[in-house]
């Protein structure tokens, strides 16, 4: 029998950091609990991440898997509206974009959730099981 899963933002199970080079952005994604890595691999696909950045003109996303570190590295092309020197965006480096990724929803067993998360113990209002 499979374990019950809850729908939550990635931020409740994982962390990450964004960096730029030219017009290319990379975002790391790292689960708090290593056991969550295979489920993230299933659910946080390059295609879903591409969808998060289509409004910015992203032309492609490659996901590099790092199973030994239990991490992922997403490389997102042409998403910085020209890069730090050309963009009109206040955040031309795209450093805040890690938290756009961390807002993506995933379905996870509750035991993978960060212990301080409101989702860790009880079902908060508005969450769907």
């Amino acid at each position, binding site marked *: 029998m499979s374990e019950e899963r809850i729908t939550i933002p990635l931020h409740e199970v994982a962390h990450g*950091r964004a960096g730029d*080079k030219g017009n290319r952005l990379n975002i*790391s994604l*790292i689960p708090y609990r290593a056991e969550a890595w295979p489920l993230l691999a299933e659910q946080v696909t390059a295609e879903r991440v591409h969808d998060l950045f289509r409004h910015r003109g992203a032309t492609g996303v490659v996901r590099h898997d*790092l199973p030994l570190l239990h991490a992922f590295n997403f490389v997102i092309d042409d998403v910085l509206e020209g890069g730090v020197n050309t963009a009109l965006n206040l955040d031309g480096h795209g450093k805040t974009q890690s938290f756009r990724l961390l807002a993506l929803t995933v379905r996870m067993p509750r035991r993978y959730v960060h212990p301080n*998360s409101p989702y860790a113990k009880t079902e908060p209002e508005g969450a769907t099981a």
Partner: protein
Amino acid sequence: MQAAEEIVAVDAGLFLVGNGAGFSGDRVDAPVPVVRTLRARGLPAALFFEVLGERTVALAQLERQRDPERGYEPMLERLLEPVLADCIEGGIRIIGNFGGANPEGAARCIARLANRQGLAGTRIAFVEGDDVRHLMAADDLEVYEADAGIDVADGALVAANAYLDATPLVEALRMGADVVVTGRTGDPSLVVAPVVHHFGWDQDDWTRLAAATTAGHLLECGAQLAGGVFFDPGYKDVPDPANIGFPIAEIGADGSLLVTKADDTGGAVDLRSVKEQLLYEVHDPAAYVTPDLVLDMTGIELDQEGPDRVRVRGMRGAPRPARLKVTASFEGGFLGEGEVSVAGPNALARARAAVDVLRRRIAMRGLQVRLRIDLIGVDSVHDSDDGALARAFAGNEPHDIRIRLAAAGADADTVDQAAREVLALLCCGPAGTGGARWRTTRRIVTRSYLVDRAAIEAKVHCAAARELAN
């Protein structure tokens, strides 16, 4: 007894490298606890500073055009003044890319500082040769792949600098330099150089060089390894984030690597912070290209060996690339920015009305600019230039919104007139509009190329402070 012997055996072959700055603009008081820690350990050590972002050299080049003596790291004296004497006394070599567009000018500045501190015998080296503007006329230059989409239009060339490898820095250390100043250099090379010099490793010993390169990559952004750009209250807390300790690498003669941070400081070095920084600004983790080697991170494993002490194992190196990256900067026109606030009842509707007015004004006056208007507090940094996310916003009514206009174009006056439309809202805008700011700045556009290593020639100069300062 056995444990003590083990520690002695391990420590015998260690070299420490501390980081004193991760970018131009970093905390100027950060190097002090790093140097204090390096000295307390009593092991051979070096201190490095990484202060050159992609555009920094171009901005420095513009500054040098205004004043030929300047064009180097503006915080140079503030960074070195509190630690120089301690480093000289402790035999801690200092390596930094604070040369910007004028490594010789930076070396003279350090020489004056050393003389003032009674350290006139300090040997200061500077590296030249990263400036490759003369190579940029070639029409067969290959554009670095991530920059293919960047349009430099017909902007005049401001700067072109190659990322030099560790070789000239090692040469400077062999000449007996206490302080080595460089301009554009591969960031990890600032760590590779003192490590290679200390252990006498061959510069094609890819396995051990991979350890030094990994150390450089992890440390080059300073606090980012130790809790900076990391703390997220409740999820990733770190102690005393106002006093994050800058990082230190312990590198062994066998190519072992452990990362830690300055003693008695805030922040944290743990598996989470090390993983985030390991992948920072990385594309393919199997092939992270540096001037000294191509680093493969896919075999890396981490162990928390103690509080704020993380062992890094399994990095591999492949031979250095045949071509070096050159970042060229061009004049990129002007950026005008204007901001104004609304708050309280009906703030979102008033902010949206202000946006409509601004768009109509720019169109009515025929101001030819590339335009973007953000609603800060609704959706801004994640949004696109056309404001798709802010338009679709269906959340709770924000209490406080800042309207920000950005306009870019080739003509300074046109851009400035667009930005001033925000100022005009103080009397012509929606009810309760206030707190206007505007400014127009020159823009620099960068684009990177790949250039044959053989075309780039670095030169090293070394002299005592008493000679250089004159």
